[in-house]
């Protein structure tokens, strides 16, 4: 079959079908070569290196606070830098700011859409961002005037062509990073709503993102339904590294505290650790008895523990270095949908489809 692709132009000399076949083989060859190269420098496994480390003893963590107030599934939460306040969002469109320590609700906003899948606290503690099925990310300044309607001061910042799956402020209140069901991530200027940079490379919905705690502070990682985790340069918009070892959607990605690695949680019931300098997956956290997907992961402050919230209502605590499960926590009466460790590492918070949030310590 002769080309050209459109009747108007005669560009390609070579028939497209041949080109396609040729490209396919070239792509396969390069992929296996890449795997070979990656494997060459993999001289030892993490748990082998960790043999000399002391094992962890019995772990006792309990629910210390239960936050009740949402009328429907809790989908997302984030901590404030003051280490005690949190913002949470739910399926019924409500976004609530709590002082988790006293369990008092401080602010509540009702979004015009349901399924608020993403929410984030601003670094200053003076605003929250949220969004979901409305395809937007909006910023609400937190006012302490009881009479003031928070919704009135709302500022629409981001605009995607599909649902908003995650959002995060960068180092200041002025910029927001978002990921969306439209397959892209984007960086926005809060003041003007301007799109500063967009990130294309995922082949399907992007479900999660996390900013790198590195010195130069210029990268972030995203995970999507295409089973890939991509590391991006925020300035140029280019994908710097890509990892594809999960067998299903990646629901959550989180950087290791040093910034040299990140963990991911997926519907394939595993959590995995990827090292950025070695450019490969270095650990899998899984058990035959765990068959439900992981919705959310986070590290303890030292990076020794990895907490995973699962769809079977439990939280599994993993020893990052040895690869073993240290503890399993029960309490929620439905899926755990979100999990974050507090900024000073004193506790972690989980949100669940059972309409509650719990603080564990």
């Amino acid at each position, binding site marked *: 079959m002769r080309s050209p*692709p459109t009747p*108007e*132009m005669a560009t*390609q000399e070579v028939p*497209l*079908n041949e*080109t396609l076949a040729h490209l*396919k083989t070239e*792509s396969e060859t*390069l992929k296996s*070569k*890449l795997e070979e190269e990656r494997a060459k420098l993999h*001289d*030892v496994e*993490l748990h082998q*290196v*960790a043999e000399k480390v002391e094992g962890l003893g019995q772990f006792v963590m309990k629910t*210390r606070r239960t936050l009740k107030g949402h009328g429907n599934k809790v989908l997302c939460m984030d901590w404030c830098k*003051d280490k005690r306040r949190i913002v949470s969002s739910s399926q019924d469109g409500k976004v609530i700011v709590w002082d988790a*320590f006293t369990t*008092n609700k401080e602010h509540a906003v009702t979004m015009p859409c349901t399924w608020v899948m993403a929410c984030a606290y601003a670094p200053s*503690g*003076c*605003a929250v961002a949220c969004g979901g099925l409305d395809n937007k990310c909006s910023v609400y300044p*937190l006012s*302490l005037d009881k009479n003031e309607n928070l919704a009135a001061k709302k500022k629409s910042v981001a605009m995607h*062509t*599909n649902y908003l799956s995650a959002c995060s402020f960068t180092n200041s209140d002025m910029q927001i990073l978002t990921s*969306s069901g*439209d*397959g*892209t991530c984007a960086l926005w*200027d809060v*003041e003007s709503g301007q799109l*500063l*940079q*967009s990130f294309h*490379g995922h*082949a*399907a919905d992007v479900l999660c993102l996390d900013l790198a*705690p590195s*010195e130069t502070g210029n990268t972030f990682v995203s995970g999507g339904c295409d089973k890939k985790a991509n590391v991006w340069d925020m*300035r140029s918009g280019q994908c710097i590294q890509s990892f594809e070892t999960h067998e299903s959607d990646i629901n959550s990605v989180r950087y290791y*505290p040093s910034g040299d*690695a990140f963990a991911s949680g997926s519907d394939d019931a595993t959590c995995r650790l990827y*090292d950025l*300098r*070695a450019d490969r997956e*270095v650990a899998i956290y899984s058990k035959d008895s765990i068959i439900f997907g992981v919705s959310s992961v986070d590290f*303890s*402050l*030292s990076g*020794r523990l990895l907490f995973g919230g699962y769809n079977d209502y439990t939280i599994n605590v993993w020893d990052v*270095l040895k690869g073993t499960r240290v503890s399993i926590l029960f309490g929620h009466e439905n899926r755990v949908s979100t999990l974050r*460790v507090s900024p*000073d*590492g004193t*506790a*972690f918070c989980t949100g669940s489809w059972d309409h509650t949030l719990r603080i564990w*310590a």
Partner: protein
Amino acid sequence: MFTYVCVCVCVCVCVCVCVCVCVCVCVSPLQMEKVIVAMQDPDMGMKMRNQRLLITVIPHAMTGVCVLLLWCSTESLHLGNMLVKYGYIYPLKEPRCLVLRPDESPYRFQVRPLSMSILPTFYNPAIYLAKKNIRKQGELMEYEKERYSLLHKRINHTWDFVVMQAREQLRASKQRRKADRIVLECQEQAYWLINRPPVRSITLHCIQLYCAIEACRKALGRNRVKSSICLEGFLKYSEQYLNHDPIMQGCLPSNPWISDDTAHWTMNAEIVPVPTRLRVERWSFSFMELLNDAMGRREFMTYLEKEFSAENLYFWQACEDIRHGESSKIVEKVEDIYKNFLAPGAARWVNIDSKTMDKTLEGIKRPHRFVMDDAQMHIYFLMKKDSYPRYLKSDLYKNMLAKAIVPQETKKSVFPFMRRQRHSSPSPAQTATQAAEEEGLAKGAGANSAAGSHF
């Protein structure tokens, strides 16, 4: 899409493009990819600005004639047309006609589903056709009608959801500003004109494979570190931070969530008279730890003042402010930095190598968010390699460490069932508002209270 607004329309971009060389009659998708990447380079590529389309202003667009001037070659028009026909850029005027007009007609870079994705969900063919059908009953083209019925048959069970999403998208588009509406509609239309099945899909597939191949090649070229070295890093880090991890080792005097006592937070507030020992120790773990802690940064500044190199830290802070601050203040802040730190004879002149200085001064002519990056990194590493290690050996630091508090562990209460009263704390939003008010009231009396939250 990319947003460096500049004053002059056709700036000297002739410099950049070695692309000129590879423009020939037979243009491959890989070459087009290279051209597009070069066009989108933040320093050397197309300068996007507002363009007029009759009475509407289209943001982040370029004119046809500018695209052609980018290459200054006899083959420019041909290459330009290729880019439009393959959907890399799309027209906003007469979107059904996919040609590059050498005039003021506006064009924009297509959002790139053609590159790394298969069928991107945001350009869902079912939703697109459903929308068109709802909007213009019976106006689908022949091949669109065929596709519509095929899709309807295949995904019959979710068709309601498709129609619901189509209605939702139509409703949402009505609420958009006219400029945004035009952009999105042209974008979508151009995409579907180009992606008519089945021939287009092979082209699409080819382009995807080209990109996958490029990505592989790039990955093959990267430097990797041996696993044994990387993994040792994890061990070291966990060990170093073990005592600082409250979940692993507990915290002093007690974990507030367990004891209901907020002493731990009070003692570790952002600014305290005497910091805790763990906190001061942490400053020695890495330069980043020192800078991330407000007190640490203050101490370091004091040290640098003694060494007469405080301008480095001031400079670094000013650069951070640009990187993370409002877009509208960038130009003003860059000017300030030039005046205070870079201009000959500046009050706080920083010592940067001549190459970086030249590059920065050149960049300042067209200021953008990242213009200070190189200079900032240079000064950062200077401080990290030189001043920071000396600070850690200095008396200033050692004294701080010596007088730092080690809190007493709170004795568990005799009656474990009696719960302490849980005190609330001022909301950061409140503190910030108050501070701002106070600042306003101070009337420039020099009392610049630290506006910001005290945690």
